């Protein structure tokens, strides 16, 4: 298997609630143009393209073909990837497979969402349908006044059970969720590509109303319009084309029980179990030659639609022991200048163009490794190894990418 590196990243100039000034292909093309600008490559340098966004959200079933010319994709191998919340990272993994396999040398991965043009809650319903309807109809009216009632308010409600379980097992207090939320929002204030960019205090978070206990409005992610593009290349082409690189040294993905939102009806009864996170990260660490992630990983970008999740994932991905993440938060270890900077970008929690959300995790790691961060959230210490994570599907699918400043040596 060949070594593969990210040699450039392109973002739309902003991630915001509504990009009314452009249509979908125009918006995505801004990120494609930025990737070309940042790498000084041209469409002729690209061998193949992968393209990803959420199923259903904009109601466009073949957006990649609608946007083919805007993507500079004509006459090239071109495929769409859709795996739910993980789509962004699955799209990057697909580009990685294209190159690692030896079939292509330089591949562009394009990810985006324009949530303002669709109906994301109907989109989410479409993901858990039709199984959820069986559950939700127990005394509840799915599309009437109590819509998604069993979930207590869309995905926030479903995540509330997970937050309850996390708090119970970890010994963390609800205040730790407030504190993580304030930290990430304040990080986002430094990131020009973040959506909610306001320095935020714990008191600000605690002033927001509850959605589903223990989750408040201030614990939930926004819906954003925006796109992210990464260009990956083989080791040989990195030497020819790139002035900087972050190596994709390990990839992993795994699914667990497909039962509705992962903890209803199936064998899993703990919504915070998230065994696929352990499976996917173990695979990615092994590929990357990482033996003890808690010592060898220098930064983490966790997929966190909800503020408790960054803490939960740090534990599930072996970056600390169970029950330790909130103590690291208290000790300042998760700050940008801490021991394990976590979501220096502000996370999904601050910016959620959902098809791009699981891509923005590895692109943030790549830019941190290359020291090409724009804005004020460059991690001061040298980043040798970084881990990025995506979470989605029907709550049970996890992707992990380990990036490094040097390529893998000697592994199969």
């Amino acid at each position: 298997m060949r070594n593969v590196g990210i040699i450039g990243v392109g973002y739309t100039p902003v991630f915001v609630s509504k990009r009314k000034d452009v249509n979908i292909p125009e918006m995505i093309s801004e990120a494609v143009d930025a990737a070309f600008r940042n790498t000084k490559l041209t469409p002729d340098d690209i061998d193949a393209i992968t393209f990803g966004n959420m199923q259903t959200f904009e109601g466009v079933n073949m957006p990649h073909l609608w946007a083919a010319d805007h993507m500079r994709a004509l006459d090239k191998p071109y495929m769409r990837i859709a795996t739910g919340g993980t789509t962004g990272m699955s799209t990057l993994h697909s580009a990685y497979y294209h190159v690692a396999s030896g079939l292509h040398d330089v591949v562009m991965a394009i990810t985006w969402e324009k949530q303002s043009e669709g109906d994301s809650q109907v989109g989410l319903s479409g993901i858990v349908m039709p199984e959820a309807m069986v559950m939700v109809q127990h005394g509840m009216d799915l599309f009437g006044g109590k819509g998604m009632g069993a979930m207590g308010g869309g995905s926030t409600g479903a995540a509330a059970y997970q937050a309850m379980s996390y708090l119970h097992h970890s010994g963390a207090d609800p205040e730790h969720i407030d504190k993580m939320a304030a930290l990430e929002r304040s990080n986002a204030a430094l990131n020009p590509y973040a959506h909610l960019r306001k320095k935020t205090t714990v008191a600000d978070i605690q002033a927001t109303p509850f959605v589903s206990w223990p989750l408040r409005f201030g614990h939930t992610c926004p819906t954003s319009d925006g796109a992210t593009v990464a260009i990956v290349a083989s080791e040989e082409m990195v030497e020819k084309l790139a002035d900087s690189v972050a190596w994709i040294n390990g990839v992993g993905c795994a699914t667990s029980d497909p039962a509705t939102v992962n903890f209803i009806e199936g064998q899993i009864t703990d919504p915070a179990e998230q065994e696929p996170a352990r499976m996917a990260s173990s695979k990615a660490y092994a590929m990357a030659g990482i033996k003890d992630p808690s010592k060898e990983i220098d930064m983490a970008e966790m997929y966190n639609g909800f503020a408790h999740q960054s803490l939960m994932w740090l534990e599930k991905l072996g970056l600390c022991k169970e029950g330790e993440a909130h103590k690291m938060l208290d000790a300042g270890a998760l700050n940008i200048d801490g021991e394990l900077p976590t979501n220096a970008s502000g996370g999904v929690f601050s910016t959620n163009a959902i098809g791009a959300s699981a891509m923005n995790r590895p692109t943030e790691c790549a830019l941190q490794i290359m020291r090409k961060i724009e804005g004020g959230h460059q991690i001061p210490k040298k980043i040798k190894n970084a881990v990025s994570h995506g979470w989605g599907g029907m709550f049970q699918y996890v992707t992990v990418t380990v990036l490094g400043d040097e390529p893998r040596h000697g592994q199969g």
Partner: protein
Amino acid sequence: MSAQQERIVATAVVPLDFTYNYRVGQYVERYIKGLGQKKIMGVKCPGDASVIVPPRKYCGRCNEIMNEWVEVGPEGTIENFTIAHVNLNKGVVEKADTEYIVALVKLDGATSLLPAKVLGVSPVDVEVGMRVKAVFKDPVEDSLEDLSHFEPAG
């Protein structure tokens, strides 16, 4: 944004209104017929003895077909819960008139969880481990809604 810019911003409104008709499948069909007799039916895995409610065909862990039907409940234990402060009405979040409890209930004899509304207990009093029992509609009408909600047992 200037008035001139405002004029060039147009939206193509596409009011698609689809209705899908999903078959619930053989397993949930039989489950609904059980509810019509005020019985909650699950299936047991021959591999790891999991009892899954509502029933489904395969045990993903054992790759076995589950075909032994067992009656579970009607009592069970609250394993997890949330207190919903909002309703979601066709994508629009609305503040609920009153906060309400939605719990994940482990029915006696089952290994899986069933989400359901719990009535008859205040949100400040609900707790994990609380015993509850299923309340059926009367008369039943052979529908999922026959299992109306749960309330404290005993």
